[in-house]
């Protein structure tokens, strides 16, 4: 184990990406994720990589598209309004089955919104994020260590399944410092025979493309892609449970909300309330089974979110009406306090489910 250093979440993402073999970064300044670009600007020239501040988020994601088409590991990062601009490229990459890592350090929205932490891009991230039938693998770190580890995992999964991976973090995760170890096990990079690297006059030309004018062909590629998504759903669901063994109340939370929830759970346990936590680490694929199983033993699930309630819909689909699912939230850049969550737990324990 290497020595732990204190790093900001944003910096941990950048260094982990470099460790994962990413040598191409394209971005555009936006709070609260600019440290990623600044870190890359410093590091990339020293290791023969490319850092390019693009003219726009749109240009940046299309540069990512180009590098990915050429078979190299590549990433971009932004925050909520910038991710909306990247939507075009994200959809094209899905259509062309190109792997890449996209980081969204969320801030409050809609519109220009604010710059304080938020989780209100959950729908955008997990339901596709742009036009067309597609998904991204969405990873939700809840510590600086996970910011780093899930970055590496994000690259590996993207390459393995030819999809884009998104790190869905928030301003708190990006800005906070915690001890982090960057001693990773790295998976081997996969071969990319589909990449455009020149035919060298030795093979038929490769075409990277998302245009299928014949509807039956387009349908076929979409169905094939969703067959791949099924494999991802089977193999790549990740979540963490905390004190769920005897839990009668289940908190559902990811990212910073899960950190806040843990404080509330510890306090509630001191008061004798049997409450636990399911923390989705992959938001897509969603840990449906974990919640379905929980619904067989708990009397209520409380979704703690920094939004008007988005993940709660996936939880409700997972438990299919078996137990009430309630919301404990703040939005617009506000963060629920442990006291607020504790109140919701006590209310649930007394039988309230509003």
């Amino acid at each position, binding site marked *: 184990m290497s020595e732990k250093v204190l790093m900001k979440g944003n910096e941990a993402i950048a260094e982990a990406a470099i460790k994962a073999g990413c040598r191409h970064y394209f971005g555009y300044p936006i709070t609260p994720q600019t440290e990623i670009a600044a870190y890359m600007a410093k590091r990339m020239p020293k290791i023969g990589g490319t850092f390019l501040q693009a003219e726009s988020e749109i240009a940046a994601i*299309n540069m990512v598209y180009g590098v*990915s088409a050429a078979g190299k590991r590549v990433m971009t990062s932004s925050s909520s309004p910038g991710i909306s601009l990247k939507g075009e490229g994200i959809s094209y990459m899905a259509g*062309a089955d190109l792997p890449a890592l996209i980081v969204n350090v969320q801030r409050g929205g809609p519109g220009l919104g604010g710059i304080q932490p938020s989780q209100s891009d959950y729908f955008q991230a997990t339901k596709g994020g742009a036009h067309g039938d597609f998904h991204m693998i969405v990873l939700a770190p809840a510590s600086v260590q996970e910011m780093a580890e899930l970055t590496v995992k994000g690259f590996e999964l993207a390459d393995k399944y030819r999809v884009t991976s998104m790190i869905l973090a928030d301003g708190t995760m990006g800005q906070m410092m915690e001890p982090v170890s960057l001693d990773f096990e790295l998976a081997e990079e996969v071969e990319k025979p589909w990449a*455009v*690297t020149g*035919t060298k006059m030795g093979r038929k030309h490769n075409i990277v493309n998302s245009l299928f004018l014949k509807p039956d062909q387009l349908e076929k590629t979409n169905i094939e892609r969703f067959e791949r998504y099924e494999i991802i759903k089977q193999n790549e669901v990740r979540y963490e449970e905390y004190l769920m063994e005897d839990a009668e109340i289940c908190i559902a939370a990811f990212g910073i909300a899960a950190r806040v929830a843990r404080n509330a759970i510890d306090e509630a346990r001191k008061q004798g309330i049997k409450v636990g936590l399911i923390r989705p680490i992959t938001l897509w694929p969603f840990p449906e089974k974990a919640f379905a199983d929980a619904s067989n033993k708990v009397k209520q699930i409380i979704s703690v979110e920094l939004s008007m309630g988005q993940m709660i819909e996936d939880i409700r689909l997972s438990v299919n009406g078996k137990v009430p699912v309630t919301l404990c939230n703040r939005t617009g850049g506000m963060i629920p306090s442990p006291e607020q969550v504790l109140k919701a737990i006590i209310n649930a324990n007394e039988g309230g489910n509003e």
Partner: protein
Amino acid sequence: MVVFDKPKALADVQMHYCPGCTHGIVHRLVAEVIDELGIEGKTIGIAPVGCSVMAYDYFNCDMVEAAHGRAPAVATGVKRANPENIVFTYQGDGDLASIGMAETVHSAARNENITIIFINNAIYGMTGGQMAPTSLPGQITQTSPYGRNVNECGFPIKVCEMLSQLDGPEYLERVAVNNVKNVKNAKKAIKKAFQNQVDKKGFSLVEVVSSCPTNWGLTPSNALKWVEEKMIPYYPLGVYKDRSSK
């Protein structure tokens, strides 16, 4: 003996272009240049959105289909990933000078070492004849049915003149393919634009003043005449920037 061969870099498929369209000529010129420079095996082409959207089927080199207007950004990515590859984009006026203007200007400003073939036919072809950023004043299109009113729609954009104001680009030339002499000049320019990239000189753009008989509502020969009489006077041919010639 005169032998007329299909260039090797051009795929042996039937193209979808309309009769009299000059895309075929320009495709051929690009393919001839790729053959002559012997670079097919390391060339990556970037197709746009527009009439040449399916150019990825027409060239034998590796190809990428880009989002509308983003070809220079995609080319930047491909080139930065593997600088030893030769990367060209093939874009129309709507793609390059309207929705993709930012990508065009900034790749030029960066002197990105790529080659851009820019087809200016003053109209949106694929979508059926709407006003383009390069449509001439007074030109009738589906979305300027009373003629392009410059007071409302603004003036056409002269891409070579505009980019020539930047310090970045290496080479900018406007050519046409409306007669044999111009086709020969166009080939020379396209070859230079690729050679510049081989020589690592940087951003080279060739604007090809082209025709669109279908959407102009003209016969192919009258369309070529319109190029001569209307287009070229507004878009003068010539070299707008050539850093290495100084």
